[in-house]
């Protein structure tokens, strides 16, 4: 069964605040083979003008992931997780994520398209800090493969 196109425009509840910890940022930086000391050394980050160490750009997916879990569980959406493939990803930053941030994300379904029996679901997650200011928008297109005929 194809993904229900009626979910377009639907939004999820804001996620619980995600506390960005220094050791998590360091762990993630190592995992993506990042070498900049601004990811790991508080002194280097402060010298570059940041309040604390800066997360690698794709760290935003860790916060976005909470919203994608909401999307997959959305009642009536009919998204079969076992058939989901990540099609594309976009991050648009107002500012980088830094250790000490408390981030909340709200997902909105932007589009549902059909292509050769597959469904393409595009979801936009707005990630904001504890003051409500925008930090990064994370957009994913998920391809939900057609059922085996």
């Amino acid at each position, binding site marked *: 069964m194809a993904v229900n196109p009626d979910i377009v425009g639907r939004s999820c509840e804001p996620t619980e605040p995600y506390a960005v910890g220094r050791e998590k940022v360091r762990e993630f930086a190592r995992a993506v083979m990042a070498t900049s000391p601004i990811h790991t050394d508080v002194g280097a980050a402060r010298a570059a003008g940041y309040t604390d160490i*800066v997360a690698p750009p794709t760290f935003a997916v860790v916060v976005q992931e909470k919203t994608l879990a909401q999307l997959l569980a959305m009642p009536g959406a009919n998204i079969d997780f076992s058939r989901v493939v990540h099609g594309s990803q976009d991050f648009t930053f107002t500012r980088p994520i830094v250790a000490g941030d408390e981030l909340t994300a709200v997902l909105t379904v932007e589009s549902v398209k059909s292509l050769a029996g597959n469904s393409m679901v595009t979801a936009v997650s707005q990630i904001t800090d504890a003051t409500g200011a925008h930090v990064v928008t994370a957009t994913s297109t998920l391809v939900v493969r057609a059922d085996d005929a």
Partner: protein
Amino acid sequence: MIAVEQLTVGDEVATASYRFTRDSLVRYAGASGDFNPIHYRDDVAVSVGLPGVLAHGMLTMGVAVQPVVEWIGDPGRVRGYQVKFTRPVLVDPSEGAEITVLAKVGAVIPEDQMARIDLTVTFNGDTVLGKAQVLVSLAPTA
């Protein structure tokens, strides 16, 4: 610091190669929280019709931006980053997988002190990311 005026479309700004091993995938799974077993269990990967364990697309995306971060010297200057996942990176249990990143200037936006850097990311001679673009700010620090 690199000035936007110094850049010309087509300039090569960075190139680098990275080796992914199964250890890299386990490390990324832990760091990111993406524990889909197709990224560390051959039996599960094969059972869903894959040729073997694949790298997380987000690991490839996360690593591929690093030459650009090293070039600009400050990860906070990345203002946008997008990719399409076009081909999987199959990670052999003993040999691993080597990916190569070539970063070139795709567009210069002097009025915003920004540049778009386009990435060509290859594995075994094939590109694995499509439309891989990084938007960087080159504004002088105040």
